[in-house]
């Protein structure tokens, strides 16, 4: 169960690359685990480390301003490709609590919201401004307020971001989505009583 999300301020890391797919976020060879723990070490592994496993100094996550940053600002269409929730676990394992982009791949966004990683969708102008800020004032802080659905920039401008109202409520109140579904057992049973089973995998 994710912790309820409170407003927070943080420095941010900018990764101005479009269509970052979940294979980049965490390469498949790190998916042989049966746990969700410890995946922060594999985050962006093949961008972060060279062929000998040494950190690449030119990659943003290896630079001082990335340490302790809880917000990632990425190019358009973040999280495309594989459904691996490991991508969210890796981002959170590294310490990220929000990703900002102009839009997110559908499965990634769902996975993020299930774990308390905020997918913050901003307009193209704000997006550009954040990338400029990353170059001009890399130590800038952003403020994220889920209750208000606001991202506050260092100049004080508040940008409202859309978010699925149900997920928002769950994240603010610590409501567990699985618990919510389990509480619907009667309705699920009523559905099953009136809809014949389509295939029985135990039958053949």
């Amino acid at each position: 169960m994710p912790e309820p999300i409170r407003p927070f301020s943080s420095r941010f890391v900018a990764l101005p690359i479009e269509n970052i797919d979940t294979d980049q976020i965490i390469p498949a060879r790190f998916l042989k685990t049966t746990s969700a723990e410890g995946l922060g070490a594999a985050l962006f592994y093949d961008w972060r480390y060279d062929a000998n496993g040494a950190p690449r100094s030119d990659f943003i996550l290896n630079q001082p301003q990335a340490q302790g940053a809880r917000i990632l600002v990425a190019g358009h269409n973040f999280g495309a490709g594989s459904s691996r929730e490991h991508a969210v676990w890796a981002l959170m394992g590294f310490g990220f609590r929000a990703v900002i982009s102009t839009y997110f791949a559908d499965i990634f966004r769902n996975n993020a919201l299930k774990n308390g990683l905020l997918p913050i969708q901003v307009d193209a102008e704000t997006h550009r401004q954040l990338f400029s800020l990353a170059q001009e004032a890399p130590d800038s802080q952003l403020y994220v307020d889920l209750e208000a659905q606001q991202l506050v920039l260092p100049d004080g401008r508040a940008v409202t971001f859309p978010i699925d109202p149900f997920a928002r409520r769950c994240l603010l109140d610590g409501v567990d989505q699985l618990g919510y579904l389990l509480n619907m057992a009667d309705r699920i049973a009523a559905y099953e009583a009136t809809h014949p089973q389509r295939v029985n995998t135990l039958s053949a």
Partner: protein
Amino acid sequence: MSQPRTLFEKVWERHLVAPQTDESPAVLYIDLHLVHEVTSPQAFATLRERGLKVRRPDCTLGTMDHSTPTTPLDIPIMDAQAAAQIEQMKRNCAEFGIPLYALGSEYQGIVHVIGPERGLTQPGMTIVCGDSHTSTHGAFGALAFGIGTSEVAHVLATQCLLQYKPKTMAVRVEGALRLGVSAKDIILALIAKIGVGGGTGYVFEYCGSAIRALSMEERMTICNMSIEGGARAGMIAPDETTFAYLEGRPFAPKGEAWERAVADWRTLPTDDGATFDAEVYIDANALEPMITYGTNPGMGMPIRGTIPDPDSISDPSQRETLIKALKYMDLQPNTPLLGHKIDVVFLGSCTNSRISDLRAAAALLKGRKIAPNVRMLVVPGSQQVKRQAEAEGLHEIFKAAGAEWREAGCSMCIAMNGDQLQPGEYAVSTSNRNFEGRQGKGGRTFLASPLTAVASAINGCVSDPRELLEPVVSL
């Protein structure tokens, strides 16, 4: 008369346990949940932590495909982590009563190959799996999509998912494919047109004369890659081709139940007058074999095309993305890909590992040899596909040509099972993703059809299959 509805809307509405409201998503009932070893362990752990059972093990099926080696089955699994994951899958399915096609089972294979071949995938169903290529099953007129591991736990425990209704996009493909052009080329052309994010938020419905003319396996190839265009699901209306494919398969309805099922399935296609939120058109007559040059499936072009020039792109972000991709691929703008030397050809994956793919490849390879500098892996999608291919002697054609004939699995599509490219190598691959490192760290992937892959294997370089299909080519 009720409002005309799309195929998607009909399937969606049939599965509503609770409707979507302003405050909450719909609760959608899932008819079939497919489970594999990589995205399920943490979901089973959630069930254990909370003392929950699997609500409908009889609507659930496990297989092993991603981390399984494709070496002969009597060789032990050398990768200790993969072996542990596979063992965990066996324990999880045994403990929760889920039927499992384990490694060594005659029905084991890639999750999106076994569902259809066993007759589990049927029109009008909802099907999910912790795998983005679950969109494959939409070829039958099912609503099928990939989910994350948290959602795998939701479905295991409740047989339901919380979902917002997606938008719909009609993908109309009219005309007739020319010789040497295949279903793979249709979907690569679509993704090149709309981009990898073009379908985000949508469910595709593929329609038009070119789609109607396709076999079920070709339709699966197309629906499979819906996710590469950003759409979680892609659907095709069921028709006589669908029914003919399904009839007699082990899990398909029998006797009177079959008649009733077909009568129901005939009501599923989109009604005249139903509207989509968006529409895109592809002229099948004009399509050529497609190939990708970059690091996402949207970076594709006709096989005789030239690699685009970043300087011709005005949007700075798009330009940087292309520069980065070409640097990774070590390719030059404004040059052709045709004739580019390759190291590996991979024929397999949930996109193109079915018997018709292997037949098409073998027909082109028969009596020929692959180039001496090329390693070619042929990986059937399932043990059933492997048996069928061997019964037809296809494996002998592959082996005589110099290719490797391997056991069923995801293999080099995901490179987490021992099958992978070496850094810097180039592959023509029939799989679905050319992301950086997807087929092995530092490996470079050109996505293409089985015909293009085989032609490239023979010549040792990226090749146009039409040159081998027709004695005289006038292009």
